[in-house]
């Protein structure tokens, strides 16, 4: 077992513990019943997704500033993992909304902006896939990642100002019983560990992809650019 496999095993174990906390330790919600248990993973994966996209943003900014291949690989890994967590958030939210709101989907601010978030970073992944790998793709994707990160709060704000019906943030105003809060915080911690492990593994995969590419076509030595960034697209 290498260290990535060990980390993955730990993350899976933590998620199983979180599932135990969600289904055994946490009390059943008085109004919503068992459906409310979706909330723990739903909110945790939303927060994990935001964290991943923050990695994309920071990675993109660092890449644009000093062409760091490491920052770009982190951005790539963050985007992929973030899209996975956004998908989880959306699907879980829809499963929750059907019994509670009696509809899978409604165009309120958080739902709309989360969908936009998903589309933006799915687009980011498509740019990475379609652009010639190398410096150009990294630059273009960095711009996409930065604009996406700015766009989402703007969309969120404009829809809020327009109409909203998503349940408000109840975690902050101690309306949550202590077992629920404990379960939520534990699930959140486990989900963040899982996201971190997934990013680390994906980072390793991206490094291997870059190395494979630079072996396949030797990199012309370019001034001011480090060789590990992969082959450069000739503009």
């Amino acid at each position, binding site marked *: 077992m290498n260290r990535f496999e060990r980390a993955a095993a730990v993350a899976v174990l933590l998620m199983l513990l979180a599932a135990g906390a969600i289904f055994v330790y946490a009390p059943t919600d008085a109004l919503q019943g068992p459906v409310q248990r979706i909330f723990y993973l739903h909110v945790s994966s939303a927060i994990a997704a935001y964290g991943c996209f923050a990695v994309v943003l920071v990675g993109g900014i660092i890449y644009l500033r000093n062409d760091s291949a490491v920052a770009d690989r982190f951005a790539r890994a963050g985007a992929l993992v973030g899209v996975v967590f956004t998908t989880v958030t959306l699907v879980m939210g829809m499963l929750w909304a059907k019994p509670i709101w009696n509809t899978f989907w409604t165009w309120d601010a958080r739902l709309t902006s989360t969908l936009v978030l998903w589309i933006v970073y799915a687009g980011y992944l498509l740019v990475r896939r379609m652009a010639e790998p190398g410096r150009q793709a990294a630059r*273009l994707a960095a711009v996409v990642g930065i604009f996406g990160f700015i766009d989402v709060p703007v969309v969120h704000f404009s829809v809020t100002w*327009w109409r909203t019906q998503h349940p408000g943030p109840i975690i902050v105003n101690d309306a949550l019983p202590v077992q629920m809060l404990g379960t939520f915080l534990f699930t959140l911690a486990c989900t963040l560990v899982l996201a971190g492990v997934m990013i680390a593994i994906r980072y390793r995969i991206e490094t291997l992809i870059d190395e494979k590419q630079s072996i396949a076509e030797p990199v012309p030595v370019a001034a001011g650019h480090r060789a590990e960034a992969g082959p450069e697209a000739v503009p």
Partner: protein
Amino acid sequence: MNQLRVALAVARKDLRSEWRTRELVPALAQFIILALLIGNFGFQIDSRNASTIAPGILWLALVFAGLVAFGRTFAAEREQASLEAMLMTPASPVAIFAGKALAAAALLVVCEMVLLPALSLFFGMPLSGDVVAAVLLATVGMAALGCLFAAVVARVRARELLLPLLTLPLWIPFIIAGGLAVQSAMGLPGSYQQAIGLLIDFDILFVVLTSLAARFVLDE
């Protein structure tokens, strides 16, 4: 000052080449009329609901015409490989980008000059200065973002696929605020002042951001 001159020169060049070929504007005008025709079949339109449906058709037609227009902004440069030549001149990439965005915005305004009267003719949408102002304000930000991402995808393989995917999510704020401004200008509920204020904010935000990012997209 010099930057502004470069931008205007680039815009003039783009508009002149469009004027000489007269390809894009007639095609876009026809595209817009077709969009209205499809809107007419897609909805059950009568004299009562036409005014509530018209704003939706306006933004749909405008957004897709915009995508076609911005997809073309870098097409000629790419075919002639003239963008590289332009970037080799001492002119700053930001000025070149601003020029191209200006020209694209001007072409989109020409399309709007077809779209708005056509909407008013076919859908009985009342045309007021308020509606025109909202559409023009949305055009500013949409042109900046559209042109930036047209530059992004210009060097990508499947650019026709990617441009809408990247641009549309970023246009959403303009469509929300612009849509509300047009609806309220037509007497539907909503605050026109607030929507216009928001459009101006978004214009400033995204014009500043695109001009900061243009350097990284064009500078190669």
